[in-house]
């Protein structure tokens, strides 16, 4: 019933330390969020392909489910997780023809849907992470509610940047999986070494993000890179092999475009987080850019 995909397995393994750290920060409820997200991802995909001849649920559904869960705030109600997961798989993936055909990154589609639908739940309630062992391992849910204080939101409101050490260690409030920059970075290195994820989109995204941050904000881009969901997006989202272009040059353009758009949206719109929209916009333009590049190649060789 489940199609085995080695690459996707590796991504899932790589996510384990991040999940563990999230439980440490926020308690066991996190695991339930991830579980619900995956169950609904599986069921949705199963409903779509159950009548097909060789219909098997792809391993990628679980990657989507897990990634989606990790981008949500730790206080997210369970039913919203389910909605996000269903939308992610059905509208992000299955309507395009299933695994391998999707134009957009399904997890991001799901997140965008609930982000726009339920801005209250998605942007207002954050948790102050627990830091003293056993911290979250001993509780179901961390209860130290804080309102509006992720580093990104704080910067937007008062132009105050969070300390780098804090951003690195992840003891800051934020979405479930996006907080510890150093952990995400290590996982990223693992993914690149095992050739599970390509380094080109990551690098091009970071280069363009840093460049445009320096231009638009006139500030050291380091703190911007490590705050918000950018680091998580760089390692896990933009590297999604399906929604990423195949052509090498196109990959570079893709990264540069998404980086630019992220900064652009963060700077000029009222949204605090730009990566999500930037990636979707990047996804939209990639097929046409790739088509253009291939045409150019054909012309040259012909």
């Amino acid at each position, binding site marked *: 019933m489940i199609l085995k995909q080695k690459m996707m397995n590796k991504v899932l393994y790589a996510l384990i330390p991040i999940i563990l750290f999230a439980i440490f920060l926020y308690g066991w409820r996190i695991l339930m969020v991830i579980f619900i997200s995956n169950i609904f991802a599986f069921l949705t995909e199963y409903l779509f392909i159950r009548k097909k001849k060789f219909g098997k649920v792809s391993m990628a559904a679980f990657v989507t489910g897990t990634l989606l869960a990790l981008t949500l705030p730790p206080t997210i109600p369970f039913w919203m997780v389910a909605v996000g997961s269903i939308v992610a798989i059905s509208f992000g993936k299955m309507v395009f023809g299933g695994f391998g055909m999707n134009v957009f990154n399904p997890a991001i589609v799901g997140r965008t849907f609930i982000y*726009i639908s339920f*801005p209250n739940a998605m*942007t*207002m309630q954050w948790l102050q992470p627990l830091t003293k062992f056993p911290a979250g391992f001993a509780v179901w849910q961390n209860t130290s509610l804080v*309102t509006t204080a992720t580093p990104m939101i704080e910067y937007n*409101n008062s132009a105050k940047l969070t300390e780098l050490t804090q951003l690195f260690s992840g003891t800051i409030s934020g979405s479930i999986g996006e907080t510890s920059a150093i952990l995400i970075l290590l996982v990223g290195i693992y993914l690149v070494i095992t050739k599970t994820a390509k380094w080109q989109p990551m690098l091009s995204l970071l280069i363009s993000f840093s460049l445009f941050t320096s231009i638009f904000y006139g500030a050291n881009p380091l703190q911007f890179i490590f705050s918000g969901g950018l680091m998580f997006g760089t390692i896990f989202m933009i590297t999604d092999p399906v929604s990423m272009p195949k052509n090498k040059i196109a990959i570079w353009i893709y990264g540069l475009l998404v980086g630019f758009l992220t900064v652009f949206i963060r700077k000029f719109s*009222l949204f605090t987080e730009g990566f999500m929209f930037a990636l979707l916009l990047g996804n939209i333009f990639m097929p046409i850019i790739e088509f253009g590049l291939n045409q150019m190649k054909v012309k040259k060789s012909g």
Partner: protein
Amino acid sequence: MANEKKLFRETRVYPIIFMLIITAIFIGILATFYQFSFAKVQKYRKTQLKKMVMGVFEIPTQNIENDFPRYITIRKMEDLIYYEYRQDSILMGYCFPISGSGLWGTIHALLAVTRDFGKIINIEIVDQNETPGLGGRITESWFKDQFKGKILIDDNILNNFMLISENEIAKDNEIKQITGATASSKALVDMIYEDVKKYNLKLRADL
């Protein structure tokens, strides 16, 4: 030319004449309708605007057609159309349109201030595209009413309001934001700041 006699409907002038006739008929019909509705539509628009301006200045009125010219003077400066509120020919305050970018589109509002720009009299949202139920709540009166009487310019320093959460108690320079719609709340506050900065000296120089 000496072939069979052509039917009139197959000649080249026929389509032109047909089009002319049918255009004339329909323009006639439309003109009649327009005549009938134009006055009413114009009147409605004018009354709406008058109501809004009077409302922003909080002038109680029974008969808007009589009271409007008595209190309000419409002035024009460059591209800006603004309104002056006079009571017994003493200038009480100004009302002018302000605008700024909201979450999904531009927010337009009318702002009324005292003659020295010292205090906000009132604010009214004219047009907005914020998320209904969230940012769209900037049109709700509890939110707008917060601005009433707030000190705008004190000692030549333009006051920039701080946003606080909905369940706190607002101090003089604070505005309670709409839960879940920080961006829209902030947009309105920023809009006031920017446009007052822009018009403040201009309008007062005209005094």
